[in-house]
């Protein structure tokens, strides 16, 4: 393979700036007192404090998982700040009261929040460090009965919904990072689509890490009642620090009878530099529960950032005829490591799932697909189709596929296809010999490879994702 392709170096990260804003932080370290302090600061009802405390005590007894194909130095959980928030003048009532510096930050990230500039068909919840700072179109959505905003607001305004659904998909003792999140989560988004409502616009949360020594622990909960449907997109960026920041989020989705939730992620956390210094450690638990019959949950993720990615957006297909989907593109470059995939747990009769995973590894990175397809005894007629493709760029990158299949029902069908390819010098030469530049040739082939997944993204973001990938590989080849 030509060294030209091997020398893939990514374009400088363009979201690497830090916003200089006064922040309220608590002292480093984690203890029961810290958990109580976080809960108190957020003036939470007792059920939530108890939820946190239970999670904390469970976490203390748990061990950090070590089964993933990831290598990183031990995380010192006492060296992390568990709560940071931009100092606010009182609780903001409207955007005019949000610190202009924050609005400017989101402007710079391409997420304008102000009335005049905001995206016309997407409602945005902007989360800065641990706190949601603004949500657009809240009122318009409320007219349809849709609740969209920060989970903290929801705890105050709709505690009964939070109490009913929080932790029902990802229990607080699900895993080490989920337990940690359950104990200390600061903010995140809450979406509630009432019975029969088709959400009139795309919903989106944009997560921005700003502080260098703060962990980010968001919690997102999306509930679609009977016959409701929603499409939700999550985006993320962080400044460039030479230290690593921990990001341990939990996302729970609940779909009742005939409901449908489409959850898309474009993850562009800072990935560290070409030597692997700095970057986000991304340990995320995402799970959807197809609780109702004929319900449908679809995960689409484009993972391009983070130094470490540990993430398996999953579906528990409990309803009869329920449908789970997972479409993923994971791009790793330099020293990035990703261990990502999904779990499809079939419980409901005739439940169906589709997995399409595309891994691209360049530089010295390592990219693993890890997926579980489980068919329970009662899931008569369940079907799964999985396709896992890996593409290698250069000769120093690694791609692994770890499919796990557990089937306890003889009347079920499971298909798994996997392929590994490499961008060959001859393919590149062919495109070049037709006047197409080297970088454009690489990016044409990469986006061709990812097309099946990009087609699943909401329109506005498909082009974004394509651009993002080219950007990551741009400048790259010399």
């Amino acid at each position, binding site marked *: 393979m*030509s060294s*030209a392709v091997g020398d893939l170096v990514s374009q400088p990260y363009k979201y690497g700036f830090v916003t200089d804003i006064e922040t309220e932080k608590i002292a480093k370290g984690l203890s029961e007192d810290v958990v109580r302090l976080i809960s108190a600061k957020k003036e939470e009802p007792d059920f939530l404090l108890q939820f946190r405390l239970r999670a904390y005590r469970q976490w203390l007894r748990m061990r950090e998982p070590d089964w993933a194909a990831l290598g990183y130095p031990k995380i010192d959980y006492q060296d992390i700040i568990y709560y940071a928030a931009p100092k606010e003048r009182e609780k903001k009532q409207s955007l005019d009261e949000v610190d202009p510096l924050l609005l400017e930050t989101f402007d710079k990230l391409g997420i304008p929040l102000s009335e005049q500039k905001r995206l016309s068909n997407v409602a945005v919840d902007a989360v800065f460090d641990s706190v949601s700072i603004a949500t657009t179109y809240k009122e318009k959505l409320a007219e349809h009965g849709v609740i969209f905003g920060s989970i903290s607001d929801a705890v105050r305004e709709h505690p009964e919904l939070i109490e009913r659904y929080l932790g029902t998909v990802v229990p607080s003792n699900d895993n080490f990072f989920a337990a940690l999140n359950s104990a200390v989560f600061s903010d995140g988004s809450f979406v509630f689509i009432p019975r029969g409502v088709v959400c009139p616009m795309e919903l989106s949360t944009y997560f921005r890490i700003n502080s260098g020594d703060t962990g980010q622990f968001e919690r997102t909960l999306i509930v679609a009642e009977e016959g409701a449907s929603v499409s939700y997109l999550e985006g993320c960026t962080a400044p460039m620090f030479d230290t690593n920041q921990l990001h341990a989020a939990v996302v729970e989705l609940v779909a009742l009878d005939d409901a449908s939730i489409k959850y898309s992620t474009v993850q562009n956390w800072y990935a560290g530099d070409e030597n692997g210094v700095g970057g986000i450690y991304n340990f995320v638990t995402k799970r959807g529960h197809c609780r109702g019959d004929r319900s449908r949950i679809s995960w689409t993720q484009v993972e391009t950032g983070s130094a470490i990615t540990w993430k398996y957006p999953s579906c528990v297909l409990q309803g009869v005829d329920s449908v789970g989907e997972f479409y993923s593109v994971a791009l790793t470059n330099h020293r990035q490591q990703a261990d990502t995939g999904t779990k499809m747990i079939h419980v409901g009769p005739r439940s169906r799932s589709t997995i399409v995973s595309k891994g691209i590894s360049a530089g010295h990175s390592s990219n693993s697909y890890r997926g579980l397809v489980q068919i329970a005894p009662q899931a008569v007629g369940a079907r799964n189709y999985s396709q896992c493709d890996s593409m290698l760029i250069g000769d120093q990158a690694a791609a692994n596929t770890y499919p796990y299949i557990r089937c306890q029902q003889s009347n079920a069908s499971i298909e798994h296809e996997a392929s590994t*390819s490499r961008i*060959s*010098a*001859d*393919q590149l*030469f*062919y*495109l*070049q*010999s*037709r*006047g*197409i*530049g*080297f970088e*454009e040739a690489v990016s*044409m*082939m990469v*986006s*061709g*490879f*990812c*097309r099946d997944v990009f087609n699943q993204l909401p329109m506005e973001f498909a082009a974004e994702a394509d651009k993002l990938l080219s950007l990551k590989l741009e400048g790259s080849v010399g």
Partner: protein
Amino acid sequence: MIRSEAPVLLEIRGLHARVEDQPILHGVDLTLRAGEIHAVMGRNGSGKSTLSKVLAGHPAYTVTAGSVLYRGDDLLALEPEQRARLGLFLGFQYPIEIPGVSNLEFLRVATNARRQARGEEELDTFAFEDLVRERLQVVQMDPAFLDRSVNEGFSGGEKKRNEILQMALLEPLVAILDETDSGLDIDALRIVAGGVNHLAGPDNATLLITHYQRLLDAITPDFVHVMAAGRILRTGGKELALELEERGYDWVDEELARWQPTPVEVA
């Protein structure tokens, strides 16, 4: 037919090249003028395909000596994509498959790169579809191939037609066709040759690389060059091809044996 006053498009002088550590070209001299069709014939391993790859700029080949001028400029200093944009075209012997990249999109990007270099306006998807449908006639290709991935699952003949379609869209000044006849049945050969004849004109030059006469029955060359051991051993008119057909290549070996090997110059 032969206009020695026509402008020189490609001038190859003393070209030496190697792939990895293996020297293959040992001093090739060749001049292509506008309006000319040249055929380079020779056995497998004589360096014909290497010559075409070197001219197109394949990164695996290293030029160790000699020069190539394209319309008076140093061709070897250019990246492969620059050569293509300026009007050099290589029709591949084995066109490679590129899964996931749509043929139509590929053709459009390539055509626009060439148009841009010529100072022409880029074509949007609609204008390009009109153009490509017109050019499909040249090779009698089924439009369904536009919706597939580049060359993916194409038969040998379809791949070659796709090559000539690209040539029809890119309107090159110098077209090098490497074994375009290989793997074609008689009908496909007729169509492909018809396409090449259609595209050959007074302002461009064509370099056919082949080792069979049958392509030259369909496309009449102005010059035939016999290549052996990395050089051009003999040059003649179209009758030289007939002579090869009759006598085979054995006389080439005899002639070659009488040659004194010239030392390879190192750049």
